[in-house]
């Protein structure tokens, strides 16, 4: 563990990502302190350009503070990114582990089902789910998890197929360990590092999907989010570029940081199969 942390500290782009990511997390945590009011409140004249009247990033068409919206939106993006990835990891690991461990016909059918899921245009599936089940944090998380799990499942299956024939697993099987214990205590811990990497990259793509959903007007209507801000400002692009520009930068930086951390983790955790 210590060795991994040390190696990561020496990984330049991974560390850059980590620093940006920590800044984003601090912003999310301190949003209620930095911008104590409700981000939906009118606090300035509408269409205030950036850096005037105390509005650092300007105000929107209803006089709401863009900077406050971004700060509060950070919480929504990170929360949805992490929760939907956790749900996707649970589904993906269970399906992948079953398919890889059991193998045979059951395993093959599970994989066919997974592949079928990957054929479906994922974003359209998200739109449908959220629109019909009515937009809320819960439905958005479920929708994103449903389009994210197949990748985890395929990865987990591959790891399980490779690991289950290894000597240490066979030795444990000969000692009479139950299949559940073999899966959870012997195989899974050794398959964990690629799953962690896939999970971290999946947080980034979940944030992108969430922003696109709220851009289309399918976010939780009670929460200020980056995608919603851009969607609401879209028709005023000519008059007020800052309304859509800054929230987009926030998404870009956050997703970039997570991707950098993920790739850094990949290099550190899987040194043999990392970039050739």
């Amino acid at each position, binding site marked *: 563990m210590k060795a991994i942390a040390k190696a990561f500290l020496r990984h330049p782009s991974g560390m850059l990502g980590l620093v940006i990511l920590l800044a984003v997390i601090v912003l999310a945590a301190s949003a209620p302190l930095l911008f104590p009011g409700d981000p939906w409140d009118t606090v300035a004249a509408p269409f205030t350009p950036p850096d005037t009247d105390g509005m650092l990033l300007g105000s929107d068409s209803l006089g709401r503070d863009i900077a406050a919206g971004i700060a509060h939106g950070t919480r929504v993006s990170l929360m949805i990114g992490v929760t939907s990835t956790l749900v996707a990891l649970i589904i993906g690991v269970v399906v992948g582990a079953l398919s890889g461990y059991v193998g045979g016909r059951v395993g093959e059918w599970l994989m066919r089902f997974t592949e079928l899921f990957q054929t479906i245009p994922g974003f359209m599936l998200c*739109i449908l789910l959220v*629109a019909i*089940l009515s937009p809320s944090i819960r439905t958005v998380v479920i929708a994103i998890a449903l389009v994210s799990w197949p990748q985890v499942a395929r990865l987990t299956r591959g790891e399980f197929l490779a690991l289950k024939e290894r000597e240490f697993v066979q030795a444990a099987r000969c000692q009479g360990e139950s299949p559940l214990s073999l899966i959870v205590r012997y195989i899974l811990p050794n398959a964990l590092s690629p799953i962690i990497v896939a999970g971290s990259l999946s947080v980034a793509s979940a944030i992108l999907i969430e922003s696109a959903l709220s851009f289309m007007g399918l976010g939780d209507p009670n929460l200020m989010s980056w995608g919603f801000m851009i969607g609401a400002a879209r028709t005023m692009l000519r008059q007020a570029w800052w309304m*859509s*520009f800054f929230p987009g930068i926030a998404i*870009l930086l956050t997703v970039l940081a997570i991707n950098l951390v993920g790739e850094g983790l990949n290099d550190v955790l899987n040194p043999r199969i990392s970039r050739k």
Partner: protein
Amino acid sequence: MGWLKGLAALGARLAKMVAVVLLIAVFNFMLVHSAPGDPALVIAGQSGATDEQFLQRVRADYGLDKPLPTQLATYLGKVVQFDLGYSHRQQRTVSSAILERLPATLLLTLSAFTISLVGGVVLGSLAGVRAGKASDTLISLLALVIYATPVFWMGLMLVLLFSVQLGWLPAFGYQTIGVTMSGWDAVVDKLKHLALPAFTLGMLYLAIYARLMRASVIEVSHQDYVKTARAKGASESRILWRHMLRNALLPVVTMAGVQAGTLIGGSVVIETVFAWPGLGRLTYDAVLQRDYQVMLGIFLVLSILVIAFNWLTDILYRVIDPRIKAA
């Protein structure tokens, strides 16, 4: 015996397509029934003002008073006949609304697909051949940033640059409205409108394929047959184009097949940004009006489109590598 194998492959493909269509139809059915409230209301796409007569017709049409399995059978029977229901909002059948919008979506997705493949292969080969040099770093860095950019925001920023600031390209729509053009002018006008949306949609995949192509070129360049070609005195460009490219292309084409689903899903957002009159724009309107039948129908049609794209990549794969017979 060759044609027999080909026939079997065709059969397997059609079977996969039927499986996907059925899966989606069952999924749509479950979704309608898991939504809160009366399924008839969901099918009718009405939450506010209700037209009782229309609701009655929907209930009778879909057998909503019968047990669930019968309802499912009725629904599947309709889908198989491409009867996707009636949109009360649009006052027309869902299938006719979709068919009218399909060409625009086909044009957009096929253009984006071509741009991403050609651009990705060219940039990726350049980066791979010059691995470690400044242009390689630049291309890799660019790919990293594009990866992290939300596609709708990228579209808006390109509009800001090319339409608002520079005035080179139109910001939205399919053609210039209010002017009748013919022949060459009309084609150029359409291409100008297509440029920004197609490029924006293709850009992410361009980045993905460029990174993949780069890795692939680097790997292939260590192969013995490349060394042989070099030893024979073949020029570097001949080695790249005649010897390396075909082999390096294969993983990229495989990836293009895998990514078809997300590319087509992405067109929904892009069409919304650029007011492109395809299925994505129709989806956006349907979302605003809560017109569920239209959304369910588009979901089905887009999934079929993904399978068609998968076939296209299979054909590409076989053209590039003739050793592979019908897979």
